[in-house]
């Protein structure tokens, strides 16, 4: 199973690299879909069908919206030469990436290998979940009962994102 996941992740990396260097923006957006659909296959191999359903639908709608945006604006990417301000920004971004990568490796060193053993909190959740919540689908039981605050936060985040989109995209004020 690890070999299959490695092959799929290799394809995803190839698609991401191509989508950065593509001349036509439409082909770049469509190539970016390889990353999302490869992620769906990885979720199915790791036995997470709930995530796979959400990912495949969101990826499709995301692709539709991005294609609509590209067709509305231009299909050519605009290039500009770097000036001194641009070099300072590039160096700052590089330093921030190195620092984040260092702390990422430090914080993930203590975790188990993915899928090898269940995490520590998973045991008490799995043991009596069906009896405690009355739900046959354990994921829904955890998401809406044990972790109700998280789910409410996600719903509120979505509302805030829509408010931001409406505020930015509205060019004329309401009468």
């Amino acid at each position, binding site marked *: 199973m690890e070999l299959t996941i490695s092959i799929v992740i290799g394809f995803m990396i190839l698609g991401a690299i191509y989508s950065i260097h593509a001349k036509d923006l439409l082909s770049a957006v469509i190539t970016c879909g390889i990353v999302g659909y490869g992620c769906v296959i990885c979720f199915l191999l790791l036995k997470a*069908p*709930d995530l796979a*359903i*959400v990912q495949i*639908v*969101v990826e*499709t*709608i995301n692709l*539709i*919206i991005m294609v*609509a*945006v590209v067709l*509305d604006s231009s299909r050519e990417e605009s290039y500009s030469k770097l000036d001194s301000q641009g070099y300072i920004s590039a160096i700052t971004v590089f330093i921030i990436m190195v620092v984040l990568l260092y702390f990422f490796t430090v914080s993930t060193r203590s975790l188990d290998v993915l899928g090898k053993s269940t995490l520590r909190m998973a045991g008490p959740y799995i043991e009596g979940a*069906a*009896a405690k*919540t*009355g*739900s*046959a*689908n354990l*994921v*829904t*039981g955890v*998401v*809406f*009962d044990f972790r*109700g*605050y998280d*789910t*409410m936060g*996600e*719903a*509120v985040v*979505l*509302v805030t*994102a*829509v408010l931001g*989109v*409406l505020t930015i*995209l*509205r*060019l*004329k004020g309401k009468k």
Partner: protein
Amino acid sequence: MEGMTIIVKKTTQLIAGMIFMYGIYVIAHGHLTPGGGFAGGVIIAGAFILITLAFGSDFFKLVKEEMGTTMVESIATIIVVLIGSAGFLLGTKIFFNNYLPKGIVGDLVSAGTLPLYNIFVGMEVAASIFIIFLSLIIFKEESLK
């Protein structure tokens, strides 16, 4: 934004209803099978996006529709918060307490308040995704007038 050819319109008439019903199935069986409020909501939004793309932007009378989706989204979010707070008032002083009778595991009507959360989160997600798509069309047409 104009509609597409008659082949696409006829195919959409056949398929859009089935996609909508599948989204409702995923939401209603969220506590029994894989899926739930988020997945089903996005599927329902996909049905509306398909109709808008096929029939053009005049089909839904867009400005009015935007007001309706905003109302649905806000009211559904408020109802989710209210159901969570009702657990604090009725139960043992805990937010998101599952205070309704749980029933038999595996029945369609079971698991207390979980199906209610699924339904309202599904409504909210469907309205949110659809309004993001609509706002890309509406505001451009408004600025062109």
